[in-house]
């Protein structure tokens, strides 16, 4: 497999407050899986790239257990939208909104992401 040079340069950026924060090269992400990133304020984000190549980011903290593990869950699609299932107790979170699909009362922060 060859990777076009400009593709490896492409950076994934997250919006934190008013700033865009550069995370890593897009090529470091595996389609269908996530990685964790450390943000300037000490919080953690879970960053995913789906099958279409779209990048999503939500808080890494699983609100049901408190552990910083959402980045290590499995990706899937439900009703057309991408979600991640927490690896601990398997609740699913919509990657675009951070809403928990199994409990209306729970949601996590969803970050704006751009690739450039």
């Amino acid at each position: 497999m060859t990777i076009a040079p400009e593709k490896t340069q492409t950076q994934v950026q997250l919006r934190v407050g008013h700033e865009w924060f550069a995370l890593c090269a897009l090529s470091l992400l595996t389609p269908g899986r996530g990685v964790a990133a450390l943000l300037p304020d000490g919080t953690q984000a879970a960053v995913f790239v789906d099958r279409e190549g779209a990048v999503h980011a939500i808080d890494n903290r699983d609100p049901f257990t408190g552990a910083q593990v959402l980045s290590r869950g499995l990706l899937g699609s439900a009703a057309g939208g991408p979600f991640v299932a927490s690896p601990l107790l398997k609740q699913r979170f919509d990657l675009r909104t951070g809403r928990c699909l199994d409990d209306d009362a729970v949601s996590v922060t969803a970050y704006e992401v751009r690739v450039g």
Partner: protein
Amino acid sequence: MPAMTTPTTPTIVVVGHGMVGQRFLEALAERGVAGRARIVVLCEEPRAAYDRVQLTSYFSGRTPDELSLVEGDFMERHGIELHLDDPAETIDRDARTVTSRAGRSFTYDTLVLATGSYPFVPPVPNKDAEGCFVYRTIEDLLAIEEYAKTARTGAVVGGGLLGLEAAGALKGLGLTTHIVEFAPRLMPAQVDDGGGAALLRTIERMGLTVHTGTGTQEITVDEAGAVNGMALSDGSVLDTDLVVFSAGVRPRDQLGRAAGLAIGERGGIMVDEQCRTSDPAVFAIGECALASDGRVYGLVAPGYEMAETAAATITEEARSFTGADMSTKLKLLGVDVASFGDAHGAAEGCLDVVYSDSRSGVYKKLVIGSEGELLGGVLVGDADAYGMLRPLTGSVPPVAPEQLVMPAGIGAPAALGPSSLPDDAVICSCHNVTKGTIRGAVTEHSCTTVPEVKKCTKAGTGCGSCVKVLGQLVNAELEASGVEVDKGLCGCFGQSRQELYEIVHTLRLTSYQEILDRHGRETARGGNGCEICKPAVASIIASLAPTIGAGGYVLDGEQAALQDTNDHFLANMQKNGSYSIVPRIPGGEITPEKLIVIGEVARDYGLYTKITGGQRIDLFGARVDQLPQIWARLVDAGFESGHAYGKALRTVKSCVGQTWCRYGVQDSVKMAIDLELRYRGLRSPHKLKSAVSGCQRECAEAQSKDFGVIATANGWNLYVGGNGGATPRHADLLAQDLSDAELVRLIDRFLMFYIRTADRLERTSTWLERIEGGLDHVRDVVVHDALGICAELESLMADHVANYRDEWSETINDPERLRRFVSFVNAPDVPDPTVKFVPERDQVKPDLPLLSIRPLEALEGSAAR
């Protein structure tokens, strides 16, 4: 805060926030009362209502939070004022006020007493000594658990339903446990003499000591005043460090008594059919009430009926409570006990149909009325039929009663499906849900799954004993209404796991995306799949890897994205996001050198170390970035992955066998090691466990394994389909006196046949019970080659064995594969600061409080963001 009410909003004050109190609040909310009235609840306990019926499940890991009965923001949403830890102390019926211990005073228009019961403690000397407990609240359990840490023996006073539950809990806490019961048999209220005898045998076989027909005369104490024994009425003395009283309950009617409400002779606040007390502004519901039929009900279902009745009466609907039946099923101890309806055969002219087998501890009795109708019954040792029989009570069963008690296999097994029940049969007695209501949920409210029906009707959300019948009913109803019952794996695939296996095998597909896009449901094609089918398909591809030409390494290319997180990191994730490490120790045999390496690694990385139930060693608390370093050392010392993370072979346990043991007839250790090395890494629908014993004494517990081997003088006996865990099953004998080679060949076939035909997450035990023809069919296929597939099964296994490689050594030698083992993609050198540990018994455990704090506060001590 002073009570502020305008005369237009009526106030309802509820005293007691237990199971029935909460159900009453829900019934008010459903009727929209919460918006029209002020509702105040006084709760004596430090926590809101929880599931007392499931109390004992705390000891199997349910947390107090999980036991809660109050959903999310229920109280806020309905504007209900709940005062925790503040019991009502006095009622002034003239002024219509209730005053609490904290001095709060509320004026009520309607008062509802739901104060439940208190455990009765017989007035024996030293009954309040240190080490004496009752068994009613979460706080009681916490105290027992704490005290049991320093105790060795426990005694339960009372052999009724709750006493047996408490005894099971003490045994579970590791205490030598005694049960002292005054009556001549256990569970005297529910079962008859025959049932009591069967129950006694089973419970004694489980290692508990039962003293029936004996009373407790005195609790004896040591100099410090702590319990050290019990003097019994038969003159004997029982040494014990801990005593739990479970000698029945009494209604908590003191408040009502002091306020001058009418009280029954033997206690209980007297109520009419609408649950009103002698003061029409005051209701009493649940265990504190003496119902209009003269009984105090100690069960939750009648309490819920009363809650509904009181709420209906308050909103001027007609409803009454005139009595309920006393069916119960014991949930604990691994003994099935159930009684329902007229269990003692009190009705005139009734006859018993009894089946009794003392050998296996099974006793079943049905009470049949003069018209042939089923009046009640007692089931001990095998209560599978409870879910079907209880709703049939009152009607004439569709088959002869003898057939209902005979075990399957003897005589004609009664094919009694839920279709034979009338619509008004109560399926869920906890929530009083009839078959008609459940059918309605499917036909009118378009529920298509059991969870949906549970949500819609509440059926199955109490004690859980009706869930099996519920499932059958939902499927039958769906089929009847023309909806094809979807046996698909998940929302992405309409095929079952077995069908997908055949597709992958015959078409030699190795890409999940291709499988999804070509064979998935229309709506799922082109999507991301889901967390159910991805690991399932990954497992099928891995089982068949060499045969279909897929890479054997489970983390290559697309495969990496499919694996559950445990497989993805080749380790088991723990509750704080750290991982555990389990090196393979084949057959449980290990050299001192290797033990020392494990010790050194654990010491150097500060890992919590524990001997597992699988004859090997688990090292807990490694951060993701430490896994490769730790494994590099382990691989160096000759260890390999133990696959504790995968749905794969776990361990083959062994006993010491012929080499050392005076009874051994074969070398069980060698066979266990050979088998473990042969099947290591084999991906399967669920985990696989095995064991080899050197003789019939069976020290390796082979009969509780997916495939178990027991040595005979002539070779080996092979047992299959055994299971420990939640639903233990004894394995069945598949073949006898096999040579080494015959044994291995038969296991090869058996495992490959299972992998091919089982459902996702179906252990061999459930698979064996599910597949048509059961054991006989499996024997036909794998021993007699009835389907002509044995050669293929053997070659599939040969491919697996030839291509096995250790996943961890492949990983640590490849920088590309190692890249994923970092805490942060943008800061590969920074360890995750939330993975922290605190000391416990000279080792460590996860710092859980840290997880409940938002990371900012944890890191900087500031709540600002």
